[in-house]
C-alpha cells in the first residue's frame, strides 16, 4: 500500500504577516538542522528536544503534519518558502494598533474572500480618524473617515450655505 501524498491546506489565521512566515521558515530550518545533528550525534550524548512556537504548532495542527518525518518538514519548508516568495501582501493602515481579535477577523475575511494565502502588514496613521487604508501591489484603497470627509466636503459646504441662508 503506497503512502498517501500529503497536501498543505493553508496558513493559520495567526500567521498573518511576512514576518510571521519568515519566523516559521527559520524555525523549520532550525528544526532540520537539529534533526541532522541528531542523526550525527554520538551514542550516549545528551539529546535536547526542539521546542516549537505557537505559530508552528497551529500550522502543524492545521495541516496535520508530523515534523518528526523529514518529508513533512521538507513539504512545510517548501510551502513556507513559496508563501514567502509569492504570496500576495496587503498593507493595511489603521489609526491605532489593531487588537488580535480584530486582526484575526480581518485576515480571515481576506483569506476567505480574496486569496487563501494573503499576508497582511500593519501600519499606523493616527490622523485618519477611523476606518483603514488598504494598499495592494498597485493600488491604494482609502476607506478612512478623513477620505470620507474629503469626499463629502461639498455636502458640508452646501449645509453651511443652507445654515447661512436660514440665518
Amino acid at each position, binding site marked *: 500500500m503506497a503512502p498517501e501524498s500529503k497536501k498543505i491546506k493553508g496558513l493559520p489565521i495567526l500567521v498573518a504577516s511576512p514576518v510571521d512566515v519568515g519566523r516559521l521558515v527559520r524555525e523549520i530550518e532550525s528544526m532540520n538542522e537539529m534533526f541532522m545533528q541528531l542523526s550525527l550525534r554520538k551514542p550516549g550524548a545528551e539529546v535536547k528536544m526542539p521546542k516549537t512556537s505557537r505559530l508552528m504548532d497551529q500550522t502543524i495542527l492545521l495541516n496535520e503534519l508530523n515534523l518528526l518525518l523529514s518529508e513533512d518538514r521538507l513539504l512545510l519548508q517548501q510551502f513556507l518558502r513559496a508563501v514567502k516568495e509569492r504570496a*500576495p501582501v*496587503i498593507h493595511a493602515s*489603521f*489609526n*491605532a494598533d*489593531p*487588537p488580535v*481579535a*480584530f486582526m484575526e*477577523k*480581518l485576515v480571515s*475575511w*481576506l483569506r476567505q*474572500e*480574496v*486569496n487563501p494565502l*494573503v499576508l497582511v502588514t500593519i501600519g499606523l496613521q*493616527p*490622523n*485618519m*480618524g*477611523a*476606518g*483603514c487604508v*488598504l494598499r*495592494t*501591489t*498597485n*493600488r491604494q*484603497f482609502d*476607506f478612512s*473617515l*478623513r477620505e470620507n*470627509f*474629503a469626499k463629502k*466636503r461639498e455636502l*458640508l*459646504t452646501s449645509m*453651511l450655505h443652507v445654515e447661512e441662508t436660514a440665518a
Partner: protein
Amino acid sequence: MTIWWLVVILGGLGSAGIGFIWLAVRLNQVSSAARPRQSESIEETADQDVEHVFNKEFREELRNRGRLHFEKIIGENAMFLQQDLRLTTSQLNEYMKTEITRKLKEEFDKYEESITDAKQLAIESIQKTNTAIDDQRKVLSQQVQEEISAEKQVRLQRFEANMADIINHYVLAAIGNQIDLNDQLEYILADLEANKQAIIEDIQNGA
C-alpha cells in the same frame, strides 16, 4: 459828434462877439466921418450953427445917448447871448447827459451781455463737469461694487474651504481616537466587500 457840435456853438458865439465889437467901432468911425466938408463959409456957418446946435453939451448928450443905446444893444445882445448860451449849455448838458446815458447804457448792455455769456459759459462748463463727474462716479461705483463682489466671493470661498477643513480636523481629532477598531470592523469589512473585486484583480494582476 458831440465835440464838433460844441466847437460849432463856441465858434458861433465868438463870431457874434466879434461882430458886435466891429459894429461899435464902425459906428464910432461913422460918427467921426459924418462931419460936413462944405465950403469954408458954409463950413464956418455950419460950424457955427453946428457949434451952436451941436455944442459941446449937445454932442456930449448925443454921445451919451449913443453910448447908452450901444450899451443897451450890447446889453440886449449880451442877454440874448446869455440866454442862447444858457439854452445851448442846457441843450448841451441834456445832449451830453443823453449821450452819456445812452453810451453808458450801451456799455452796460454790452457788459451785461458779456457777463451773461460768461455766466452761460460757466454754467455749461459746470454742467459738463458735473456730467463728467457723475459718469466717473458711476463707473467708479460700478468698479468698486465689482471688486467688492469679487473680494467677497474669494473670501467666502476661502472661508468655506477653511471652515470645511477646520470642521473635518475637529471631528477627526474629537472622535478619531474614541472609536474602537472592533466597532469599526463591520464598517471596514463593508468597504472591503464593496471593493473586493478590485482588490482581487489587482492582486491577480500584480507584478
